[in-house]
């Protein structure tokens, strides 16, 4: 039987031994439960007791929980990985890993897997609360499944973002700052650009654009980069009775079929994750074989200088 990744085993061992993991999990669940309770109290009073009350409470509860969980996943997962490789550099254990028989891929994968194991634990913890909303009615199984896929895709991508910065930077503080910065740029930058575009375009130009095929594709792709917009759009499409997998956009001349934003989001996340993980692997530097080394001699030199400065501390 092949053995599990050594880094994964070690990280899980020490993560579960420390109190930090439990504190984090407790805070995370407390926020979720608190928000749900507040919402329940607020809504239960206002909707009265007619037949639809349960359904409305269920829907509100579900979307609130999904949103809060998504926010938490967006913020927690990059932090889980951003300290991982940079932390080895800080603790001066990085050289020992490189000098061992571990491959760069094993190092990166072990770090990613141990963070994902914990992130999945966070997501799994939401499922019972979501099922509660499911019991109230008003939410279908499709919605619950899509929400979980969205959470998992987000966890993987945002963990990969943290990992990428961790492989690049020399300190955990630097890596964490850049990882959180990247998350903020994605989450706030995309809506900002959307607002800007709609503001500067004249209404006539906008309606002409809405007819063009490439604009339809590009705009769908663009909003599918943002977890909240992609999943929110999907939710509203589902409630207006569209298929969970594709959307038919009617222009004056034809009907254009595009993938549902959540599906597009999951696919784009996967592609971005692969790219980020691959470039993380490339940043784990052992000695380069002679030919490759010469090609990279200049940048390599610079990196060695940085690497050594840290290990000298």
């Amino acid at each position, binding site marked *: 039987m092949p053995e599990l990744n050594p880094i994964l085993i*070690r990280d899980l061992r*020490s993560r579960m031994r420390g109190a930090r993991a439990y504190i984090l999990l407790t805070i995370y669940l407390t926020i979720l439960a608190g928000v749900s309770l507040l919402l329940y109290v607020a809504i239960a009073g206002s909707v009265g007791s007619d037949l639809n009350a349960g359904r409305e409470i269920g829907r509100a509860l579900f979307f609130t929980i999904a949103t809060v969980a998504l926010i938490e996943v967006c913020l927690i997962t990059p932090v889980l990985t951003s300290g991982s490789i940079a932390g080895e550099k800080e603790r001066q254990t990085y050289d*020992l890993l490189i*000098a061992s028989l571990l491959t760069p891929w094993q190092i990166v994968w072990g770090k990613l897997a141990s963070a994902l194991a914990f992130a999945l634990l966070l997501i799994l913890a939401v499922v019972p609360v979501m099922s509660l909303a499911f019991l109230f009615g008003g939410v279908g199984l499709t919605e619950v499944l899509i929400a979980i896929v969205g959470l998992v895709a987000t966890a993987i991508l945002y963990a990969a973002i943290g990992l990428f910065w961790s492989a690049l930077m020399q300190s955990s503080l630097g890596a964490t700052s850049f990882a959180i910065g990247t998350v903020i740029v994605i989450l706030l930058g995309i809506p900002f650009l959307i607002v800007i575009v709609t503001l500067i375009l004249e209404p006539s130009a906008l309606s002409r654009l809405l007819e063009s095929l490439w604009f339809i594709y590009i705009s769908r792709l663009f909003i599918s980069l943002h977890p909240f917009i992609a999943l929110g759009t999907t939710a509203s499409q589902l409630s207006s009775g569209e298929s969970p997998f594709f959307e038919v956009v009617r222009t004056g001349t034809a009907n254009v079929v595009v993938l549902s934003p959540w599906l597009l989001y999951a696919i784009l996340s996967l592609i971005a994750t692969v790219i980020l993980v691959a470039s993380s692997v490339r940043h784990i530097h*052992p*000695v380069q074989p002679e030919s490759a080394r010469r090609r990279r001699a200049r940048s390599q030199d610079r990196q060695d*200088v940085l690497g050594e400065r840290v290990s000298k501390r």
Partner: protein
Amino acid sequence: MTAIVETRDLTRRYGSNLALDHLNLTIPEGAIFGFIGPNGAGKTTTMRILTTLLAPSAGEARVAGVSVVSDPRTVRRLVGFMPDFFGVYDNMKSWEYLDFFGRAYGIPAQRRQQLIGELLELVDLGHKRDDLVMSLSRGMKQRLSLARAMMHDPQLLILDEPASGLDPRARIELRELLKELRALGKTIMISSHILTELAEMCTHIGIIERGKLLAAGEVQQILRSMRPHRIVEIRIVSGAAHAEAMLRTHPDVLELRREGARDTKENESEPLDDATGPHTLLADFAGDEHALSELLAALVTAGVRISHFAEQSGDLEDIFLHVTTGIV
């Protein structure tokens, strides 16, 4: 003996700074090789190249005939490295620390368990098996680090300044440990900027300064080759001025110094005054035993009163000072 480490014109630059300058180093199998040089001489750089952590700028480095550049993986299997710092993981027990690196070197589970026990015993940490690594003393961490470097049974151990920062007792323990390792058939390369740390335990030494190898070889051979003449220490109670004049003109005395002259900046041209107390002279003497006894007889016959006349035991420290002429 075959060479386990061999470098040919090994050169490493950091920008414009030449850290290693055409280094040609050979370490025979089974040696305890002391790599000695002042801070910044290039010891760590050499060791990092040999452990595949750093690429050479030019030249070649081979471990057991394997190039560190073209086949780093094989080299990693052959080399155990203990850097000049100790990397600590939070929340990790001693045995887990070794277990992790055992896994990292792909050692099968059963063998790993057995090895951890054996190595912890070897480095005298059997009783610390379940203690957190963080809680160990500096000397213990050092020994654990050594056990870690041994996990994959490497042929060559590269230890970068292992003795620095250790108290005398821990240092002695380390020395004993190295002897045991040598008995196990390991070749050991150990660096230090303090010569006396290594003097007694090495079979071979190499002296490096500013990236250049100044001398290398068996300790005894180096002692001989670096010191073709002896230094005679003469303490004179009276007649010092006369003795000095005699020695200066003696054909076998290559150089004559007054002890402490360098510190006091005493004017060497002024004759020595017996009233200022006994004086000690140091003579670089090129002659043999007979010539030396004749010199003593001549001095005594001339009425010089001598309280001490002895050859200085040449030790590594002198050679070190002699070779590294205080450039750094």
